């Protein structure tokens, strides 16, 4: 019993840290759970993915609640795009459970982590308020344009939506990555809305948050009913990541400036390299649990 309680507490503490680091770096709280569980607890990667995707639902619903109330997230845009992320997530979970050699998942995870920190170095969304954007035909048909209260400009700002087609394709890819790796893949959703659809950055990030829970649910059910969500791991992870993400977002409001965020991004780069190294070792047939 002592070992069982000890490990429970260790997983909880690790999840709190993962949540803090993930959200301080501006990524989701769940992005480091799979690396932590596989690298430091030697949990099989499918179990780590199962626990992670459950925690992603908890953190995203928790924070989406606030943004929806403040009417920053564009629920119509989110609901339309969720069509593509959920289908992608099903494909991703299917791929994940079919890949029998986990080496590929380690490698893809490492690469995705590295891509995720890129926006921190070359910041996307430098333009606070995109101008002269015209609604594209689909956006016009679905009347996706909306307005929100821009805090920095301190006024209501109207915006249009373009590039719905390319944005949707990118969302499908984001969904695949979410289902395959058990992450929220918020970075990819934000890239789709910010770069392709030219939404204001604040609207992109909050709408992405609104979408993450539904995207995660599409693959979480598949993992759950296949017995890949182990309650001994999933319970402390869900609670820990939620606490960590809450603490992290509070801290993030206090620390201004990019230095801190880049410091946390560096931690993620180290973890990414560890995942890549493990993947390469697995390809070499050396096994991970030496």
């Amino acid at each position: 019993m002592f070992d069982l309680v000890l490990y429970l507490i260790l997983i909880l503490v690790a999840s709190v840290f993962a949540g803090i680091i993930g959200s301080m770096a501006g990524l989701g709280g769940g992005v480091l759970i799979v690396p932590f569980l596989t690298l430091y607890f030697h949990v099989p990667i499918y179990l780590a993915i199962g626990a992670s995707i459950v925690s992603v639902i908890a953190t995203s619903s928790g924070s989406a609640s606030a943004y929806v109330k403040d009417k920053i997230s564009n629920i119509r845009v989110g609901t339309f795009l969720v069509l593509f992320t959920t289908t992608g997530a099903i494909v991703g979970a299917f791929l994940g459970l079919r890949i029998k050699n986990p080496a590929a998942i380690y490698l893809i995870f490492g690469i995705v982590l590295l891509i995720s920190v890129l926006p921190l170095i070359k910041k996307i969304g430098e333009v606070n308020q995109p101008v002269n954007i015209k609604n594209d035909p689909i956006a016009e048909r679905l009347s996706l344009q909306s307005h929100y209260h821009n805090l920095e400009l301190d006024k209501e700002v109207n915006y249009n939506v373009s590039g719905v087609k390319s944005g949707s394709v990118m969302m499908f890819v984001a969904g695949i990555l979410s289902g395959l790796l058990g992450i929220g893949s918020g970075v990819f959703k934000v890239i789709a809305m910010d770069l392709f659809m030219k939404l204001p950055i604040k609207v992109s990030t909050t709408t992405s948050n609104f979408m993450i829970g539904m995207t995660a649910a599409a693959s979480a059910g598949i993992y759950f009913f296949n017995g890949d969500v182990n309650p001994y791991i999933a319970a402390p992870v869900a609670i820990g990541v939620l606490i960590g993400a809450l603490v992290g977002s509070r801290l993030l409001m206090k620390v201004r400036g990019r230095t801190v965020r880049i410091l946390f991004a560096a931690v993620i780069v180290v973890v990414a390299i560890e995942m890549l190294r493990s993947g390469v070792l697995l390809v070499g047939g050396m096994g991970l649990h030496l």
Partner: protein
Amino acid sequence: MSTGKERSFEKEKEEEEKISSKVLSFYLIWSVIISLSVIVIGLITYLATDSTGYLTVPVDILLRSYGPNTAVFPHYLGTITYGVLKFKSFAIIQLGVLLLILSPFGRIFIQVLIYARERNRTFVVIAATVFAVLLFSLYLSKYIH
């Protein structure tokens, strides 16, 4: 130029959207609170009874137990319900996890109702399709392993 009638229509729409956001926001936060509470109750039961309610294994095996045939924890609706009725700790945790996983299903269903109330036919169809995709994922889960 908008007539007075159109303006009052716009205002009405704004009001409706405000209520919808409130309903969604309320649902989002309470779905997390409730499902996590159930998980915590399960954990407390586990620590208090010193039993998972299922096959007892050493921690290193427990950390690697998974798959459709595992006897270490339940992962089907029937077995979870049975376990919860018997007050088995791992079944209670799984119930909380399942509530969490299913909460977005309820969220999109509420959106279908909201759009129906707003008479936004296009978005009733879109939200209903998302709901169908989510249900389809559960159906597919049987065929994946």
